[in-house]
């Protein structure tokens, strides 16, 4: 059976062809149309949405706040934040790579081509590339790869070389390798199953990159352990870095102060909003996650 929009709520989101009556908007509430929603492996799915052109302004590290459909006839009360996985300006599409976790993502997993999907965004500050950088090192794990993947798109556009180290439990759940490969990144896979994902080994890989001046900046997401490693090496070798953080969110606009993470700035601990001050932060300032 097909769901329509609940009468209990407003329905003012922009559809693909709608005229935007508030074109000044930085952020939109959009009703995208599901183009596909395929499984990547047992745990992850990949959804492609046709959206209003305003939504295509999203760039790497920014997120959308998703009004997930109900998996079970009881309402899902809060939006769920997701990094934009890919922006396909040619086809007017945005994509998300997501892990099926709880109710919200289970609801997402039910979406079928042609279904509506209400997404708000793009939100927050994403990754930035310094014009002086020639090569960057990207290290991600799990769902963090969804956040890091579009960085290779950004890097390709800016003619920056990318080495992407993808960490995963086993070969079956390695993700986004194809996307990184396509966009010209050098990809390396490290696995728990053969112990190559151990911190010492990853440290060695990063050390090599540093030695070969292939790491003008560090980027990470998805593992506290890997963040700590990059922080340590970055500090030692004076390599700047960026990390994308996660936290439970309500508004996504910086208004509610629900999504706080701790940062250390000039020796002092402060709280910052992941949704608006981030989700991408100076790697050295992040205290943990």
């Amino acid at each position, binding site marked *: 059976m097909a769901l329509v929009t609940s009468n209990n709520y407003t329905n*003012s989101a922009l559809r693909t062809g709608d005229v935007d009556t508030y074109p000044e*908007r930085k*952020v939109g*509430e959009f009703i995208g149309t599901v183009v596909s929603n395929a499984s990547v492996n047992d745990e992850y799915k990949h959804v492609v949405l046709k959206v209003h052109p305003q939504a295509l302004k999203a760039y790497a590290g920014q997120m959308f706040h998703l009004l997930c459909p109900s998996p079970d006839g009881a309402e899902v009360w809060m939006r769920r934040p997701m990094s934009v996985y890919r922006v396909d300006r040619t086809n007017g599409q945005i994509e998300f790579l997501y892990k099926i976790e709880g109710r919200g993502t289970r609801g997402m997993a039910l979406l079928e081509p042609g279904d509506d999907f209400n997404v708000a965004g793009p939100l927050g500050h994403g990754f930035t590339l310094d014009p002086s950088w020639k090569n960057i090192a990207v290290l991600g794990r799990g769902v963090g790869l969804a956040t890091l993947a579009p960085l290779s798109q950004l890097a390709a556009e800016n003619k920056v070389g990318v080495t992407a180290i993808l960490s995963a439990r086993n070969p079956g759940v390695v993700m986004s390798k194809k996307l990184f490969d396509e966009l010209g990144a050098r990809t390396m896979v490290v696995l728990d199953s053969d112990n190559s994902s151990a911190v010492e080994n990853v440290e060695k890989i990063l050390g090599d990159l540093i030695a070969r001046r292939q790491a003008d900046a560090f980027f990470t997401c998805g593992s506290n352990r890997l963040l700590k490693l990059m922080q340590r090496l970055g500090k030692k070798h004076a390599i700047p870095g960026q990390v994308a953080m996660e936290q*439970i969110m309500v508004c*996504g*606009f910086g208004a509610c*102060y*629900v999504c706080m993470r701790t940062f250390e700035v000039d020796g002092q601990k402060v*709280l910052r909003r992941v949704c608006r001050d981030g989700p991408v932060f100076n790697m050295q300032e992040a205290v943990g996650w």
Partner: protein
Amino acid sequence: MVDLSVKIGDITLQNPIQPASGAFSWEYNDVIDLNRLGALVAKTICREPRLGNPTPRMAETEAGIIQSIGLPGKGIEYFVDHIVPEYAKFKPPLVVSVNSETIEDFAALAEELSVPDVDVIEANISCPTRNQTGGNFAMHEDYTRDCITAIRAKTKKPLWVKLSPNAGDIVSIARAAEAAGADCLVIANTFLSLKIRTDNFRPALGNKFGGLVSPALKPIVLRMVYQVAKQVKIPIIGVGGVTKAEDVVEYMLAGASAVGIGYAGFRNPTALVQIIDDLEAWCDERGIKKVTELIGAVKDADMESDPLVAASVGV
């Protein structure tokens, strides 16, 4: 076309839709045109810079969320110097919500906030996770009277008072606030609540208790608005579970002059503007010329009281 404007004391709002304190900031201009709103309502500010409560600050419940933010902020100085000017870029009146642990400081804060760009002081005397003699004065008639009297003496700005749905007798508290000089009552703040996780036996929120926010609560708050409206002369702003234009109508029928909206704006960031448009259309379809006609217009005078008659007609 319907005239959507309403008056709250001396302030005219272009329409009865405003955000609820804490669920809004000027940053929402990214997604909606703030100049369309009836008023702008800032998050509750305290004197000192505050970190707020330990995370997690929100947890989803069966039908809504509980949240406990803990009034974080950069303190009143930063607020007046940097945040008020952000709001001042927009046309609707600015309502500044304020809270303090002591009555004296509450009054002093209200005075310090009475700067030209601030149009209304909203005394948030109902923060559910503060205690009843420190910040959550709205649980008691006497504390409410003393607190509002003190604030009233220190500011000439319109003074709105946000009441608590956790109080047992909201009518008496409302009357105490009115008697002490409130210009308007905002009904209501959130319901003190608890969620315990059954996976690890721990409270779901870092602060243990939180305020419940859910459209499910609208009938309770609506009842409070209705009861209070029959007993006070000052206007009321209904806050709780408004998610669509009919909810605005329902609150106005019960006696509210305007509504505040929190949750709906989280669910649909463009909701507030859409609700204004929908309310306009709703009135136009019914030939309602002024939205103020709806205030207190509930038809409750001739209800059938004989069950034997009632049960022989209609569904």
